[in-house]
């Protein structure tokens, strides 16, 4: 039981290790709750993300898991500045020159518009729903080349060549450039979304539930594609998902969120074989495994009730209202910090304990 993460112990911008691509430090996102028709008055706030800190190394996949309402998508959108963070910092180590005088490490959360515009070349996102994230009136060529046009890359012919290359890379036929999204299946549409994300040679891709809407056999194809692309292009992924078995397959490290907080962060196999936080235990024990004999033997930790509202989260440890190991007078009065309990294995619990669940 060593360090406690305190803002003071987090090194300054200058000492971001060279293998770290992005560091998130105390990220907070609040959404106001307003009332009134003409004179809207803020009457409260939902804190969707409440001070999370983590880093992702270059070429690594960090899996961010949690149930609906845990704040995982909001956190990712804040990191990309698709939402404005309320507080906290995000440090990004740029990998390309961009021909502008940006420092090697850029603080994204407070960067100006111009800086963000440049940095968008380095960070892209693939969304969950391949039906909603592609404009039905645009051809594949115009969808995939749009980032190139926005960033003024190449001539029209060069861009078309690039689009054809990208389609080939994601396993689609280059002849399909003039087709519209509705002419493709769900899996193919997700490939188009991936091609668009790759267009500007980004370093970081946020994958927000990229396979949740797909059938199992198609899911496997897209997961294989993502793994191949990472190998070939050295991409770094932030992979957001609620499916813990998919996350185990694709991630190097896994972070578990509950009601806006990180409760556990660990290397992939540590997280699944030696989870320490009671919420991780419950989450892992709830995931069904396609093996009837194993399912008979497994013990399930059934949580009571539902996830509390983020508008009014429980005090101290946010999990204490549902925790099987709740200790009165401690868990409900003092918030557990995220501590490094074993090398690389962090948990935010007063009574952490390794438990094997299968």
């Amino acid at each position, binding site marked *: 039981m060593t360090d406690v993460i305190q803002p003071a112990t987090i090194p300054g911008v200058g000492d971001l290790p060279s293998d770290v691509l992005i560091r998130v430090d105390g990220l907070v996102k609040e959404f106001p709750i307003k009332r009134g028709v003409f004179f809207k008055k803020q009457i409260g706030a939902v804190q969707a993300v409440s001070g999370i800190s983590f880093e992702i190394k270059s070429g690594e996949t960090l899996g961010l898991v949690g*149930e*609906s309402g845990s704040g995982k998508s909001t956190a990712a959108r804040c990191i990309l500045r698709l939402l404005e963070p309320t507080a906290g910092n995000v440090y990004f180590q740029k990998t390309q020159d961009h021909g502008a005088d940006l420092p090697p490490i850029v603080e994204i959360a407070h960067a100006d518009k111009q800086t963000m515009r440049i940095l968008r070349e380095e960070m892209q996102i693939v969304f969950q729903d391949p039906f909603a994230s592609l404009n039905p009136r645009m051809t594949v060529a115009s969808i995939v080349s749009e980032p190139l046009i926005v960033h003024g890359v190449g001539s029209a012919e060069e861009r078309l060549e690039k689009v054809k290359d990208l389609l080939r890379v994601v*396993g689609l036929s280059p002849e399909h450039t003039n087709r519209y999204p509705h002419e493709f*299946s769900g*899996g*193919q549409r997700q490939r188009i979304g991936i091609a668009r994300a790759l267009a500007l040679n980004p370093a970081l891709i946020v994958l927000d539930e990229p396979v949740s809407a797909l*059938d*199992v*056999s*198609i*899911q*496997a*194809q897209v*997961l*294989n*594609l993502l*793994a*191949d692309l990472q190998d070939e292009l050295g991409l770094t992924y932030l992979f957001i998902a*609620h*499916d*813990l*078995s*998919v996350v*185990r*397959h*694709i991630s190097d490290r896994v972070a578990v969120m509950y009601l806006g907080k990180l409760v556990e962060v660990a290397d*992939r*196999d540590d997280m*699944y074989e030696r989870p320490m936080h009671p919420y991780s235990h*419950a*989450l*892992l*024990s*709830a*995931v*069904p*495994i*396609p*093996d*009837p*004999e*194993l*399912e*008979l033997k*497994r013990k*399930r930790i*059934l*949580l009571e009730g*539902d*996830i509390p509202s983020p508008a009014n989260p429980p005090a101290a440890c946010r999990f204490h209202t549902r925790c099987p190991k709740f200790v009165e007078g401690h868990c409900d009065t003092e918030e557990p910090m995220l501590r490094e309990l074993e090398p690389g294995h962090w948990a935010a619990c007063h009574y952490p304990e390794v438990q094997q669940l*299968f």
Partner: protein
Amino acid sequence: MRAVDGVSFDMMAGERRGVVGESGSGKSVTAMSIMRLIEPPAGEIVTGTIEFQGQNLLALPEDDMQDVRGGRIAMIFQDPMTSLNPVYTVGDQLIETIMLHQHVSKHDARRIAADALGDVQIPEPMARLDDYPHQFSGGMRQRVMIAMGLSCNPDLLIADEPTTALDVTTQAQIMDLMLKLAEDRGTAVMLITHDLGVVAGFCDTIQVMYAGGIVEYGNATDLFGNPQHPYTWGLLGSMTRLDESHTERLHSVRGAPPSLINPPLGCRFNPRCDFVQDICHDSYPALRESGRESQIAACHLATELDLNTIDVTGVVGS
């Protein structure tokens, strides 16, 4: 378009059957047909019989079918928000179902309704009868649907993707509850899902559907342990598993399911099959013994192929 083509199966009283398949495989249409919920012009049952406790449901007059529906056979759906009426209280809707199928007074129906909510572990059931669906969370709404489905003690409960819209910890609660209730009452359950993990913990027997037909049937342990149809085998290989740390590629089934407007000739799985031969293009394989007891597969090669000895990493499939 034939959404379901020549599907035949039996279910025993009290059996828990899993119907698995990807979108468009015909699993929901099969269930809707049993309930006779498919009406022209949307679609029609062209031929076949559906026999339930000795009665051909397809020949029943609509009035009698209404007694079966919700009485002896109940159904719950994926999205509990759209299957509950938002302008009536949960109690009103439960009481309506109960009074329709059981000859009881409104007062008694209310008591039965409260008991039903209590059975699905909703706290303070009597008070919650007066709440509207939006006052319940997703998991609680699905509990209400289960309470409604079981309120008339059906012999068969058809659950169509009952937990797909729910979080995984809520899914575990609901599946645990359904298992307990079905076991206590001896209710047969037909669980329709795309999630092979969910059926593994719940079902005795499983039928796998593909492109409108059943491609494999067997008891749960055998089907997962020794899949006999290349599609089942590929589906299991496509799955990421919580208890396995494989860093290599997944063995996926290549391509996508066929269009049912113009399905492939012969075996409908032939464009995606790793073991396809001439015969697969010529004739549609019937469900046949696979060489293993209790397991049948619709594959020409079922007796010849030993899928379990095949090295997955050597098979192409992207």
